[in-house]
């Protein structure tokens, strides 16, 4: 294949930071805030643990066991061990690698197994949020053909251990906070939408807020979600939904 032009030659950029002036400021600001948030203490994980999760998410792409499972008709048919960095417990590694590499074939029994192995439901949801945010920011850098920023240094401090008093397990695999169960101590949890995927991380309100603060600039503002002809982006809503639909279908996801 002939040499293809790099983004450096196409747009004169090498890093995510170089995209200032080309990409929307709100998108790049959201990335910067997300990395800063990840480096601090969370609800169930310390800053150092959260950055270890980020490193493990990236390591999952190099894991032969994950690759074999992904290629198998059923991931449960493959036995082996993850190629991991050795920084985290086995249940954490399993959670990170599966969510990072084969999220379309997870199940309630798999989540129950992680919890039986000692991973709390709150820690699981915090890890899911971190994994999803890392995949999102790394995918943007890869798509734009630029280098992601170096990982920040972790900030000291203890995890808060906050559990929303209204969290209940009902129709999801983990406890969620439904709109009618939000407590004042949860902080702002829902805006224009409170159903479906917006409840996914609600067991850890800080993670829910941080995820959507990053996610909305990638897609569209939630107060525009019902506007099928919105012009808030440089591409049309139909073009946005084609990209979203194909990406979701390849992830075997209905969202």
């Amino acid at each position: 294949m002939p040499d293809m032009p790099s983004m450096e030659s196409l747009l004169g950029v090498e890093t995510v930071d170089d995209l200032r002036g080309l990409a929307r400021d709100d998108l790049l600001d959201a990335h910067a805030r997300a990395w800063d948030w990840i480096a601090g203490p969370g609800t169930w994980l310390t800053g150092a643990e959260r950055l270890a999760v980020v490193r493990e998410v990236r390591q999952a792409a190099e894991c032969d066991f994950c690759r074999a499972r992904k290629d198998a008709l059923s991931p449960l048919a493959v036995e082996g061990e993850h190629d991991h960095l050795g920084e985290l417990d086995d249940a954490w590694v399993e959670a990170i690698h599966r969510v990072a590499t084969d999220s379309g074939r997870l199940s309630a029994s798999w989540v129950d197994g992680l919890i039986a192995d000692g991973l709390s439901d709150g820690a699981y949801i915090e890890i899911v949020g971190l994994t999803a945010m890392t995949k999102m920011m790394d995918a943007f850098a890869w798509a734009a053909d630029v280098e992601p920023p170096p990982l920040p240094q972790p900030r000291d401090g203890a995890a808060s251990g906050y559990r929303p008093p209204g969290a209940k397990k009902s129709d999801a695999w983990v406890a969620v906070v439904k709109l009618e169960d939000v407590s004042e101590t949860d902080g702002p949890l829902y805006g224009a939408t409170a159903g479906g995927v917006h409840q996914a991380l609600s067991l850890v309100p800080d993670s829910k807020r941080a995820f959507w603060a990053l996610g909305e600039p990638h897609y569209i503002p939630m107060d525009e979600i019902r506007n099928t002809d919105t012009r808030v982006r440089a591409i049309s809503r139909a073009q946005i939904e084609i990209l979203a639909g194909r990406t979701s279908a390849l992830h075997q996801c209905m969202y």
Partner: protein
Amino acid sequence: MMLRASVQDTGAEFELTSLSGDDAKGTVPHQNLLLDFAETVVLRDRDSAAALRPKLIEALGPAGYLDACAVVAGFHGFTRIADASGVPLDERYLGDAEDVKAQTGVREYDPR
């Protein structure tokens, strides 16, 4: 789920079966480029991405191209939080769910 509504409301056409990888059928500008780019990013196909980028920048402009990058990246995250938490589909989409599954090739995986 918002694709059908956004296409209809703007007077364009697009067959949901195109999301499963078949040739795109519809009238949304640059639909084939967009479908190919989404697949290229999900599959991390460097050669294909390098070939598509100049075409996308020419078709959409730098800002449009970077917005396309952002959308594909965003759905690397939305899909994961939905699938890892097992939250059911929003009620307003349930009526269309079986139809969309059939047309897009998305299957349900339940090993229980």
